[in-house]
């Protein structure tokens, strides 16, 4: 086996991918080759930091949730241009949404419905959620009615929340002039511990946290 060939096996060696025979040959070579030992030491350092970083990664489904959330929004630099299209863009933004829910009852294959209640900030508002399990995810339909009219720099946001204040955004949307709209979303199965549904009114200030201005609330545990 040539020098280059031995050197090329170092990555596989660290990953435990060599056959017993290859491993024995390489280790024999390493015993007599300081250059390859140095290369192995450097590769091992990179291997170790990668292993450590890999051990602490977020769950894979989180990426889907993050991208689903932002796909309905317009990034800062593009925002002014889009505002010229507000009526048409509003229709696109409606498609945004998403939320979740999940509690044992939503894991049934048949559709369920949760009625959302109005709050003091929007006493005439009403809404409901329908969910249906599709594979690993949940297809959610949110229908709202008589939501207050928004200023141009505001939007509505739907959340799933816990009683301890933990909260995950499902997506943002705007309603039609009469305050009604229906939006569809896909909820990952990882939000099982967020049984409270909230719809809040949000200023477009770049802060991704909730404003706390709830206009509709619901409790999946009521199912």
């Amino acid at each position: 086996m040539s020098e280059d060939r031995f050197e090329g096996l170092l990555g596989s060696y660290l990953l435990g991918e060599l056959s017993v025979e290859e491993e024995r040959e390489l280790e024999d070579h390493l015993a007599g080759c300081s250059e390859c030992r140095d290369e192995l030491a450097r590769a091992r350092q990179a291997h170790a930091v990668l292993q450590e970083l890999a051990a602490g990664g977020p769950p894979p489904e989180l990426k889907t949730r993050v991208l689903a959330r932002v796909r309905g929004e317009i990034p800062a630099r593009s925002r002014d241009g889009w505002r010229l299209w507000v009526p048409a863009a509003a229709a696109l933004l409606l498609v945004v949404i998403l939320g979740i829910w999940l509690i044992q009852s939503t894991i049934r294959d048949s559709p369920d419905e949760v009625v959302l209640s109005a709050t003091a900030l929007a006493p005439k508002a009403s809404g409901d959620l329908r969910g249906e399990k599709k594979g690993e995810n949940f297809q959610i339909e949110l229908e709202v009615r008589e939501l207050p009219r928004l200023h141009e720099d505001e939007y509505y946001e739907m959340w799933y929340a816990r009683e301890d204040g933990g909260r995950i955004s499902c997506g943002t949307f705007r309603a039609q002039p009469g305050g009604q709209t229906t939006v569809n979303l896909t909820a990952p199965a990882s939000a099982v511990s967020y049984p409270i549904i909230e719809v809040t009114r949000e200023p477009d200030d770049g802060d991704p946290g909730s404003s706390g201005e709830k206009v509709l609330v619901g409790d999946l545990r009521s199912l």
Partner: protein
Amino acid sequence: MFGSVVRVVGDEELIRRVAEGDDRALSELYDRYSRPVYATGIRVLGDASLAEELVQDAFTSVWRAAGSFDPGRASFTTWLYRITRNRAVDLNRRRRVRPVSVGEEPLRNVSGGPEPEGGVDGWDVARALSRIPEEHREVLTLAYFEGLSQREISRRINVPLGTIKSRSTAALKRLHRSLVSPGAEESGHE
């Protein structure tokens, strides 16, 4: 062997694309940096679900504020670290941090952000990965973060197994160089 010219899209180019509404660029930045953001959440907030919220908030902020990023004032990594730190402080202030439970132990050596006081942290590794050629980053990502064997990687990206083996070694060496001599990799950026 390691001097081949391979175009690497730099973080600053990706954030410019994000500002134009390119969610694929955001996806790439997420792949590069969600781990150190998450690790920071685990370390600061001590809770996996809060760390997930931090990742979501941080990358939503990146999307919303991409147009305000100024590469003349800070690197993308520094900018993202500031966003992450500020969002973590907000989350920490708003919620009582629950005790760390089994399986949620904070990562060791993930402490200093992009300019650590010493040692190597998750931000350094993520940034070093972003600087190496895509074919190297790909093989490392599939092996370490997706847990694929070299044979599975070979099938996934349709490259001979022997090439995957030698590329793995090359990629580890390139990553090591990127960690210890960051400037040496900058010329490979688009």
